[in-house]
């Protein structure tokens, strides 16, 4: 047997390898010994284990039998060959999809509309239920089965998406991919390098990736877990290697705008929230999971945080079934117990959310991964009541590093105080060597959050 034992993440560990040959058994015996290691980390939102722990990838390249050499996975093309053989062995009858495809495309005026109708139909109507025993772990379920059952796993959904798009006349391909959880790419020929399947649409020379498991994902947008990862696209007997583009954080922007006035012990005014990209997709997914009769209550609970101090009214939103456009929510907010009066002074706790105020890392050993590149901007304006003036502002916090940017500050123009916050997690990760500086920033942020605005009677 020709096996390569690829050693990964061995640096820094006390590992010895011993290679002997047993003449009687005619076998190589390779012994790895490791000493003095810590246990696995019990931390949430860590990178996948293939990034963290020492391990061995057993790459079975080939074997000789009766002087004849049989290739297993010697190179990437061998891996692709095996995958393709599974695909070829499927008993596809996509004619079963024709009626639905016609229904979804006949009234569409552009190609993009046709593609979206099909892609979104798969997202909305195929439930993720995985039965992956035996070969079903690698061979996709036939498209007509997934269609009929209305459920499938990622391979089933990718295959259905492919077949439906092909029925509509588009060039759609099955595509293997290892998500961010996996540290490898296709330069290593092994079953361990991928864990997911999507569909690639090739149109006008461009490749667009479609993932039916990402509910409410907008056409042309990509989930964080596949961004920057290499994909293996079927191309007959050959294959294409490509990379999913990395998208900037601003695509996921979430904004919050509140124009507040003081009313007794409360801050009252109009709020406008917007969501885009992955922040939009996750909100849509959340709300659409509620029963119809609970949806209104769910929205109110989301906006008022189920907090007695918050009352929301006059709620208007953009269409919650549209996953392409900016999602907006507007309402009137009354924030009780935000204002305290003592003698001639008014003390205001302007910021309800105080994002990241307690987000310090203590004794954490692994990088911290966010679900997506967060990009949050918040603007709260406060009208200073007649006869009062503001004494001083808390000191701003301004930090901009490779992995994050935090900017929180106050300013004043006329009788309007403006409080702006920006939080950007540029790469959806905080690395362990970021922690020290990050903690310092959070301490400063926490101090700013604990400082009240003071209005004194002039």
């Amino acid at each position, binding site marked *: 047997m020709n096996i390569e034992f690829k050693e990964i993440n061995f640096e820094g560990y006390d590992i010895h390898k011993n290679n002997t040959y047993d003449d009687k058994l005619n076998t190589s015996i390779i012994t790895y010994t490791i000493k003095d290691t810590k246990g696995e980390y019990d931390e949430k939102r860590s990178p996948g284990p293939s990034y963290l722990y020492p391990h061995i990838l057993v790459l079975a390249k080939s074997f000789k039998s009766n002087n004849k050499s049989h290739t297993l996975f010697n190179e990437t093309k061998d891996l692709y060959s095996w995958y393709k053989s599974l695909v070829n062995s499927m008993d596809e009858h996509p004619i079963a999809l024709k009626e639905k495809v016609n229904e979804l495309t006949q009234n569409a005026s552009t190609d993009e509309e046709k593609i979206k109708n099909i892609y979104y139909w798969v997202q*909305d109507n195929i439930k993720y*239920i995985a039965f992956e025993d035996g070969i079903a*772990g690698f061979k996709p379920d036939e498209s007509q089965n997934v269609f009929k059952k209305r459920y499938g796993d990622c391979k089933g959904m990718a295959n259905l998406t492919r077949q439906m798009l092909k029925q509509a006349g588009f060039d759609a391909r099955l595509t293997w991919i290892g998500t961010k959880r996996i540290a490898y790419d296709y330069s290593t020929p092994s*079953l*361990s390098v991928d864990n997911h399947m999507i569909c690639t649409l090739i149109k006008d020379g461009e490749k667009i990736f479609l993932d039916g498991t990402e509910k409410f994902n907008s056409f042309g947008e990509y989930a964080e877990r596949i961004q920057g990862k290499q994909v293996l696209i079927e191309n007959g007997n050959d294959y294409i290697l490509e990379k999913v583009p990395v998208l900037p954080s601003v695509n996921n922007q979430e904004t919050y705008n509140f124009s507040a006035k003081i009313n007794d012990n409360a801050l009252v005014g109009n709020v406008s929230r917007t969501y885009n990209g992955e922040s939009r997709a996750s909100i849509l997914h959340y709300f659409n999971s509620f029963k119809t*009769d609970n949806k209104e209550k769910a929205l109110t609970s989301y906006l008022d945080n189920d907090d007695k*101090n918050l009352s929301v009214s006059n709620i208007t939103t953009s269409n919650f079934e549209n996953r392409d456009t900016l999602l907006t929510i507007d309402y009137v907010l009354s924030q009780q117990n935000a204002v305290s009066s003592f003698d001639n002074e008014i003390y205001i706790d302007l910021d309800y959310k105080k994002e990241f105020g307690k987000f310090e890392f203590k004794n954490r050993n692994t990088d911290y991964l966010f679900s997506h590149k967060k990009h949050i901007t918040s603007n709260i304006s406060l009208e200073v009541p007649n006869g009062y003036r503001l*004494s001083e502002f*808390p000191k701003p916090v301004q930090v901009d590093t490779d992995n994050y940017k935090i900017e929180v500050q106050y300013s004043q123009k006329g009788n309007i105080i403006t409080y702006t916050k920006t939080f950007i997690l540029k790469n959806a990760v905080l690395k362990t060597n970021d922690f020290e500086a990050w903690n310092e920033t959070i301490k400063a942020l926490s*101090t700013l959050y604990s400082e009240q605005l003071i209005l004194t009677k002039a």
Partner: protein
Amino acid sequence: MNIKSLLLILFLSITYLNSAQVTSTKYLEESKEFSWGNDPAFNDEIPDKWKNESAVIIYKNISYHLEKFGGISSAKLHYIKSTRKRVKLLDKAAIDNFSELSFENQYNPTERMNAYMKKSNTILGIKIIKSNGKIINVNVSDDAVVTEEVTKVAVPNLEVGDIIDYYIYKLDHDESESVSYKPEEHTLTESYPVVDFKLYIEARDHFFINFNSYNGSPEIKQLDSPKKSIRRYEMSASDLEKSDFPNWFYPLAELPCYKLQVYFARSNRYEKITSGFLPEEHTIIKKEVTDEDIITHYKRTFKPYGNLGPIEKYFKQTSAKNYQQKATKAYNFIRHYYLTRLLEAVYGSEAKILNPYEVYGSNGLFFQTRVNFINYYIAYLKDNKIPYEVILGKNRYDGAIEDLLLSRNLEAVLKIKTKKPLYISLLSKHSNIGYIPPTLEGINAYVLTYKKHKLESIKKGELPVSIAENNESLTKMDLSFNDDFTTINVVRNNAYKGHSKTDKQDEILLVRDYINAEHKKYKTKSYLELVKNKKLKAKQENELNALFEKLETKRKEKLLKTAQSETDLENLTNFSFKILETGRENFNDYFVYEDVFTAKNNFMKKAGKNYIFEVGKLIGGQISLKDKTRDANVYRDYARTIKNEININIPEGYTVSGLDKLNINITNETGAFLSVANIEDGKLTIATHKTYAHNFEAKENWPKMVAFLDAAYQFTQEKILFKKI
């Protein structure tokens, strides 16, 4: 773990498990006929008022088939329950919900302990009716995952507008002459609205049925039957809104519901030994329980029984001033001798450190049932010529005594007829004489009177209700700040009395907190003192010490978390605690412990040179009612009082403003929230007091409760200003 190895394991486990039966085929045809046969013509229309629901159950049917096989002398029994639902799916959430159906693999409707050896069959039948009328029969075995406890089935091809019509048919097989099946008590409503509901029972001879409908639920009717030996019954209800139980509510006490219990007794002889309130004849459904039933059932239950040797020995070395003291000492002795004395060994046995039977033998160590314990105490009362009664009550949450039907709904309380009566209801690690479970307080109950220790008569009587002042929790906090106000130092004294005490004792006390004092008091030996072999004793002593050290570490962690959640303070450090009083002697004694810690001062907000302190938060989270409407009566566990006393050392160089907001008084007949704040000798003292006056309030009084609940919540939002001089 690599996804591929995970898949491999999944592959192996599913292949193995799928070789077991996904769903029984033996009774498949019968199950279909039983569950889907005899269908009325459905019009599948949804009432307009429910068009906005997630799903609507067009038809729900729960059917029981009580079948007996073989001749008169055989007793092969089938107890079959089939639950069928025909549901129209109106949104995606409903599709998600019904795309996966699951059922427990084991069905055990009897009370038998060794039921795992029984054969039981569960059959799932599913069909889908598409919106165009096409009917699809689902092959349940195709996409199922069987685990040890549960089988999950994926339902294919569901779309909004479809109807899913499924049943879960469960068959229990038994061979016995006398069986009491588990009773069932249900409200008519469930999580989706129901257009039509039917309960159906078909029973062979010698199956006895208790059934009644309550709170406006329709009555059960007898139907015609082809054979004399088969009886058929049906209860129908319609237009059932979905259940939406509010907080502080007992559904069975108020909402339409039914209670059902089935028994089997092959003949008269077996009727007598079958446990429960059996109907006179199997042909009659028993709807209520009479005084005669109670007398018959409990005639020989309560009687003096037990070896009083240990208790007599104890009383030779102790004396008591009056009956009250005597009864209390007797109770506490019994609690020690028959329970806590053995606890160290029980823990050691569970940790596989020792075998308690080697030291204690196996005779008469614990009371097997509450009745055994009550009978032992009755033996003591007999010995001391103290009169008593036995009270049989129904818990507040399942309805009034007049509605008694199921024997499992009755709980016994022993009443000692001293001048001031004493009640005994149970025996546990920290229980006291005088304790009545909150679920039995204030109820109207059966009172069994005894003459010469034989049941003489039966009448009705009430159990007393505890008052708020006796169910008290009192927390005194002394606070000081460090120089830059970033941390807060806290010393708390936490005291609990009455019902407020029981949960805390169970949560906090460990046996080693009190057992040595008990051994000394009652002159009994601990487990280790009874171990004869020196080597074994040394080994077990070490292991027990290690075990209890572990428990103490866990306890400290738990108490730190408790301190955090009770004060809403965070990042606690330098945490220590001390138990000051165990409160185990008398029901009205306080359980007291002290805890000390330093916390991050998240309640202090900088305001220029001054500081705003969110002092209100220190009394802990309060009920926050966003929606103040309520259309249901209020059932609380018990009346109670929660008191807080906060003492803050005012930092040097600062004065305090804002006390006016801390002086509050909202009092009415349902309860109160009061707060008084004072400054004296450089100390700010705030005393708060929240009372729930009763364990029940009529819904008309809800606005009065809201008044003091809102006041308590608003208090937590109040702040004071530390102003720099």
